């Protein structure tokens, strides 16, 4: 599903990622661990084509994203979902409209949009808040709205960057349970985090980065 071969990325001639080779199979749940500055976010940014690798190859669903045309990037992103630490919800739109955006972009009918958004909101337990603005929600609810937006499109891959970064352990566990449910439906998950508690909560494959290098890969094949 996701393959990286000897990937290098430099910022101002300093390597942020050094010779990363990694394979993630379809349906896997992988935690990307490492301290701040280890290169977790850089790796995710390469996967969703916000940046290009300076060296090496990245294959996503057998497509080489290192050579992908800029005009093809939106279509690749439609097969992925993204969850961020800061939620990145549109504050002027309701929860329903935020979750509906990926479907609107693809030109789905109003009927299909309503159906899929309702399903996604139900999956994250936010059906009753669909008319609310993001500012009226708690941090946990905002993250669940963000997850609903990421899964509304039934993506093959879900990437999350520190999704529990600002949350207390209980809320963090709740969000991780949600990710496990999504993974159980067949979606491949790659979650970047520096929180060691998450490893205990999830008990899945853990890939660790340190100073841009692949330090360990534990639990592969589970």
């Amino acid at each position: 599903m996701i393959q990286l071969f000897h990937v290098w990325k430099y910022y101002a001639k300093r390597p942020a990622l050094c010779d990363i080779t990694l394979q993630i199979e379809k349906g896997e749940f992988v935690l990307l661990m490492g301290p701040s500055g280890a290169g977790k976010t850089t790796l995710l940014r390469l996967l969703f084509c916000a940046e290009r690798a300076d060296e090496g190859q990245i294959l996503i669903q057998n497509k080489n994203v290192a050579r992908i045309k800029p005009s093809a990037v939106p279509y690749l992103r439609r097969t992925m979902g993204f969850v961020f630490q800061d939620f990145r919800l549109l504050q002027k739109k309701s929860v329903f409209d935020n979750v509906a955006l990926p479907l609107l972009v693809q030109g789905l009918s109003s009927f299909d949009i309503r159906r899929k958004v309702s399903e996604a909101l139900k999956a994250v337990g936010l059906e009753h808040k669909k008319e609310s603005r993001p500012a009226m929600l708690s941090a946990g609810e905002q993250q669940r709205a963000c997850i609903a937006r990421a899964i509304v499109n039934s993506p093959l891959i879900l990437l999350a960057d520190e999704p529990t970064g600002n949350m207390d352990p209980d809320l963090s566990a709740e969000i991780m349970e949600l990710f496990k449910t999504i993974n159980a439906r067949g979606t491949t998950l790659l979650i970047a985090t520096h929180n060691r508690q998450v490893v205990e909560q999830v008990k899945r494959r853990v890939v660790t980065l340190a100073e841009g290098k692949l330090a360990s890969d534990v639990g592969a094949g589970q």
Partner: protein
Amino acid sequence: MKRIGYMIREALTNIRVNQTTTIIAIVTMAFTLACFGVFLLLYLNLRGAVGALQDDIKVIVYLHDNLSAQGLADLQQRLTGEPEAAALAYVSKEKALADFRTQFPSEQSLLQGLGENPLPASFEVTLAPRYRSADSVKRWTDRLKAIPGVAQVQYSRDWIDNLAAMIGYVELASVAVGLLLAAASVTIIANTIRLTLYARREEIEIMRLIGATGAFIKIPYLLEGAVLGALGALLALALLKSGFEFMTVHLAGPGRVLGLTPKLGFFPIQVSVWLVLAGLSLGTVGSLVSLVGLERSRA
């Protein structure tokens, strides 16, 4: 369809949300286009006035006295067939004399003693509009002089040359002013859209992440620019019309005192429609300029 509806809604929301910026952009755009409109109005009225004067320009083809009746008929037929001649009037020797006596009653003594009528017969040719340029008239009159039976050809060349030069200068000035003001309009709209883009940069980033194409993101901003440009042009037209009515009312009095009755006219409907379309196009170009910047800043 759903996507188009979304794009239009987004454009209108942008305009509504950024009211102050929008109003400033429309008013500035209106003043800029009004400046160009004043020049255009002046040019169109001047061209109309000059056109009316040009209608009076005639080429006089004097004939030899010994031209036979058949020769006269042939010449008349030939001149009528020339594309340069819009209208042709024959002035016989007798009519020429009568006209002279009517126009210069005090100079009749000059003709006494000459015996026979010294004035030649002639054709007064009104030029077709597309052949009124100085070069065209010169070429044609040179050709006429070579025709048998033609004694002399006269036309008010200086007058035509001066008129042509004046229209040329006004045209040139209009184009120069138009280009400068068009650049100003594009800059105004580009800055307005740039402010909107800056205010909504995070939203644009989110749209990119969820798989929105460049067109899906940009079209609302292009629509916004087009609407701002068109509204600016409409306001400019309203300002110009008000100013024009005010001027015509206040200029009519002094004009009558000086014995002038200026025939001023506002833009015909086609020109007004073109002005609004020009505003719309300038607005769209302004947005495009900003969006090129957005593309460059893309992560």
